[in-house]
């Protein structure tokens, strides 16, 4: 199955939710009136785009409808599609790996799927012919190290670990040395889940960065914030606060195979300009895909 089908499969519920509703509204309306905009507003909000982003989108839609003298409700759909595409941009998800090693740090709040995503990213990169080393940096949660170890074995990549309760920066330090000596292409650092409101945990994250910057000053670095597609408006705050501590370069949107719509990424892109790089659409090792905004929207409609 290619990306398109997989995403489409994963998004089937999403699409059904959003577009069926939109289609129903558009067909039943026929004409464009205030009620139509209000209904569209509701549809976008129910996809977790958030009030502010939704208002902006609908406002712009109103302007465009007027400007283009659109009279039929069905044509509004194309306009809306264009507009979402505008916000998401036409960038494709990709990571930069020009240095050896390059570093990926994976961060996020508790329970979003960081460790699972790391397993899948490792597999993805290995398929691309990269040599990967994982640093088991979640030394806090019970059995987190064992969990990432299982994923490392499944993906067939190396893992550097300490015992539970160890200083995560020390783990990262050792993993950097290992990545250097083993000539790994990519070092992927797992971190403990932390709520962005916990100040000392965010400081701990900064310390990890200081270690990486000191040991690998020239390395390409990606910081991926993992977001659960079911998350609501709090995801925007998460993205904001994690960006302050860790210069987030992209998002991994997980659990898109449920009924959640993940519309919050549109709000995040619109407010913070952080792009989605990867999407998780299932529980299998290969159920992580490069994000493609064009196909994402195409699959949505």
């Amino acid at each position, binding site marked *: 199955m290619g990306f398109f089908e997989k995403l489409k499969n994963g998004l089937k519920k999403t699409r059904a939710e959003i577009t069926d509703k939109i289609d129903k509204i558009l067909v039943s309306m026929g004409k464009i009136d205030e009620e139509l905009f209000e209904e569209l507003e509701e549809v976008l909000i129910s996809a977790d785009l*958030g*009030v502010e982003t939704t208002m902006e989108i609908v406002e712009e839609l109103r302007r465009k409808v007027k400007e283009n003298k659109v009279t039929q409700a069905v044509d509004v759909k194309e306009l809306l599609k264009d507009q979402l595409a505008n916000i998401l941009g036409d960038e494709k998800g990709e990571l930069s790996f020009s240095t050896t090693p390059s570093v990926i740090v994976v961060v996020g709040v508790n*329970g979003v799927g960081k460790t699972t995503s790391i397993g899948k990213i490792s597999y993805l990169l290995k398929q691309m012919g990269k040599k990967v080393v994982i640093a088991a940096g979640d030394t806090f949660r019970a059995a987190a190290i064992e969990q990432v170890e299982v994923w490392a074995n499944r993906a067939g990549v190396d893992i550097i670990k300490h015992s539970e309760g160890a200083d995560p920066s020390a783990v990262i330090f050792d993993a950097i040395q290992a990545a250097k000596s083993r000539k790994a292409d990519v070092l992927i650092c797992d971190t403990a889940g932390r709520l962005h409101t916990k100040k000392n945990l965010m400081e701990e994250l900064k310390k990890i960065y200081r270690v990486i910057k000191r040991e690998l000053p020239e390395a390409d670095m990606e910081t991926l914030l993992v977001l659960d597609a079911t*998350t609501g408006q709090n995801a925007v705050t998460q993205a904001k606060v994690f960006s302050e501590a860790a210069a987030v370069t992209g998002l991994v949107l997980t659990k898109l195979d449920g009924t959640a*719509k993940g519309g919050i990424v549109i709000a995040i892109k619109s407010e913070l300009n952080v792009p989605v790089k990867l999407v998780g659409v299932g529980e299998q090792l290969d159920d992580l895909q490069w994000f493609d905004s064009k196909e994402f929207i195409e699959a949505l409609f």
Partner: protein
Amino acid sequence: MVFEGLSEKLQQTMKKLRGAGRVTEKDVKAMMREIKLALLEADVNFKVVKQFIESVSERAVGTDVLESLTPGQQVVKIVHEELISLMGSVPAKITFSSKPPTVYMMVGLQGAGKTTFTGKLASYLRKEGKKPLMTACDVYRPAAIQQLQVLGKQLDIPVFAMGDKQSPVDIAKAAIKHASLNQNDVVLIDTAGRLHIDDDLMNELENIKNAVGPQEILLVVDSMTGQDAVNVAKSFNEKLSIDGIILTKLDGDTRGGAALSTKAVTGKPIKFIGIGEKLNELEVFYPDRMASRILGMGDVLSLIEKAQQSFDEKKAIELEKKMRTMQFTLDDFLEQMQQLKKMGPLNQIMGMIPGMDNKMLKDMDVDEKKMAHTEAIIQSMTKKERVNPSILNASRRKRIAAGSGTSIQEINQLLKQFEQLKKMMKTMTSMGKKGRKSLGKFGLPF
């Protein structure tokens, strides 16, 4: 932040609606759009919001405006009350089976926090005098069983596991048997996270339910969940007929609209909230606190209500007299502080004071610890010293520092603040009738 903007807007709209008498349709309409936005921004499901707004509007139009409130405030008061009643006015308790062992089953999506909650609940039940047994039925997620085992070791609570090769139904059944043999009167079953649309795995839960007949099935929901919370709660409830909801990760800054959404679609009570990763950080759910959190606005009304409850009118008049005549002593200061504390967490109270918006609050770090220190200092003074602090010489201060576990610097600071407060009162009481009136109502020298 977006939400603060809304909160301010709400307050602005509220201010505009002056006038007395009855709440008019116009008042309600003006407020409802803002309240709708506030609820949506808090991730309450839009269908739930719509219904809620409709029913509240109906109730609000035509109500008499209470003395000292504006129509806007009156509407917010109604909204607040309705939110509380919707979430089930009183905290719901966990129930026990008359025939032990009592079995609880934890279910939910991946990453909601089921395993951590299982540990927390077990620890809570042990404090209640039970002998819990935790059961590892998550045979899918790598290292999930180990996670529960580690928690069990930390808590010194037994964990029943059979590895990841057995079926969860068999493990659950065996766990009950094991519990009966080992005098465990409570069995907590930790199940694997699953999507509510995964039919196979949902059937598995149903099979476990049928095999062990749990006293309660608890749906664990991440409090940060957005609009999808209704779909999740509905599916789990339809399939398993859950008995209660657990909201996790409430120590973040989410508004937690999922609380309202899940309650509204299932009708099942929220029983506990999880607020942290330490295993004792489990709290009973209080609907009123959640209502304030979801509305997320400094609301004058609860302050007035709380003030009315905690402040004795007679005492307030007495205090005012003392202030005017400058007889305010450290004893009064202490009493005021204790009354203030009765009203709830300081940050929350500050948020309710009119004119205090979130921006101001952010710069102001209310330190509850410092208040405790102040209390300790005053309590370490003699009666004479409290009435007349000027007699506090170096040796008295030294004694007080030792007695209260603080430092002389802290005592000096407190005395300085107290003097400043007295001065402030003098100017306030001389401000005239208007100033006095408002002081009489709030009696807040802070």
